[in-house]
Each structure stands twice: as structure tokens, then as C-alpha cells.
């Protein structure tokens, strides 16, 4: 049973035509947790629409503690996006990527793949020269 309907799949396929470089999606999950399984199901369907460029890796959080610690993963499900060089982009999606978070996921995949930014040059310069680590957490709900 598909989680995405035919119209979603078509819309996504069209959006993914803009993809340029590979994107690596690393999902840390708990295999027996419903939220984790749901997140995995959605991500599998999304990457199946562009398998040449979208690479999904699934990690059992409890069996990959070292890697999880390296990425700062403390909760499941947590999705990490890495770019074409397999470098961490700093982008994390916590929870099931559905509703509002689904839109966030797709936009983030496109941004990473295309290497685009929607920020002004002035903002980019400021952010590039930060002297401290910053954590930005945006809490959302599906609707």
C-alpha cells in the first residue's frame, strides 16, 4: 500500500526534474516504533521516484550509537541530509515527514541538490562568519 497518492507522486516527479546532484538521506529509527516505520515508508516512496540521485540509508538508532552521537541524534525518527560530497548539511527533520514537514523535506532535498539558497547575500555573509555554533529548532505540526 502506497503512502503517497498518484497525484503526489506525479507532482514530486515533476519537482524532482530540477534535481542536479545526489542527496543522501540518513534515517535513524527504532524498528519497532510506529512513527519510525511510518517515516521510513514515506522516505522509501520519495527516493523511489528518483533513485539515481536520492540515496536512503536506514540506521537502527540503538545499534548505531557511535554514528548517532557523531550526528548528534538523540531522538527517533531523525533524518539527516548530506550533500553530493556526503558532507553533513546541518539539516535535520525530526518526526514523520508528512503534512507541513513533507513540504519541508521536499524543499530541503531540492535546496541541497541544486545548492540553492533563498537568503540574501548579506545574510549569507553574516551566517558564513559566525563564531559560535547555533542550533535552530522549528517546532511544527502536520497541519
Amino acid at each position: 500500500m502506497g503512502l503517497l497518492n498518484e497525484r503526489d507522486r506525479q507532482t514530486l516527479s515533476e519537482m524532482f526534474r530540477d534535481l542536479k546532484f545526489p542527496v543522501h538521506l540518513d534515517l535513524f529509527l527504532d524498528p519497532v516504533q510506529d512513527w519510525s516505520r511510518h517515516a521510513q515508508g514515506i522516505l522509501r516512496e520519495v527516493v523511489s521516484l528518483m533513485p539515481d540521485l536520492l540515496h536512503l540509508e536506514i540506521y537502527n538508532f540503538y545499534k548505531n550509537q557511535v554514528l548517532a552521537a557523531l550526528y548528534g541524534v538523540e531522538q527517533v525518527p531523525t533524518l539527516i541530509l548530506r550533500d553530493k560530497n556526503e558532507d553533513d548539511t546541518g539539516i535535520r527533520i525530526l518526526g514523520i515527514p508528512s503534512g507541513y514537514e513533507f513540504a519541508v523535506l521536499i524543499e530541503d532535498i531540492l535546496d541541497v541538490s541544486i545548492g540553492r539558497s533563498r537568503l540574501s547575500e548579506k545574510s549569507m555573509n553574516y551566517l558564513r562568519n559566525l563564531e559560535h555554533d547555533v542550533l535552530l529548532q522549528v517546532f511544527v505540526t502536520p497541519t
Partner: protein
Amino acid sequence: MALANPARIRGESIEANAFVEMAEQEEVFAVPKTVFTIKDLGKKQAFEGALSEDHFIRQLKGLMELS
């Protein structure tokens, strides 16, 4: 934002219903809610509602300058 400087910035989109404990800890009563944390300065600030880019950068600058 994270893409501008992945070494320094981590951007998390958190589904509040799945992480109730985290949401309660950050006192999330309305969404979107954005929480800025600068750990090594011990600074934290939260905003409810959508933030414009200018507002966002101004707030971040303010937090940094207070150090």
C-alpha cells in the same frame, strides 16, 4: 540557514506531536515556534509565528552581541 554554514549551524524541523517532551520543555503552545540556542554562550531565545529573514538575522545578531 544551515546550508549557509553547516559547520556552525544545525537546523532542525521538529514535529511537535511526535516529540511531546521536547515540545513541552520548550513550551511550544503554538506553531511554528523557533528556538535559537547558542550553547557555548549559554543563550537561548524563542519566537512564535513566522519569522522574516531580516527579523531572524537581527535576532541572531542580538543574541551574539549580548555575549
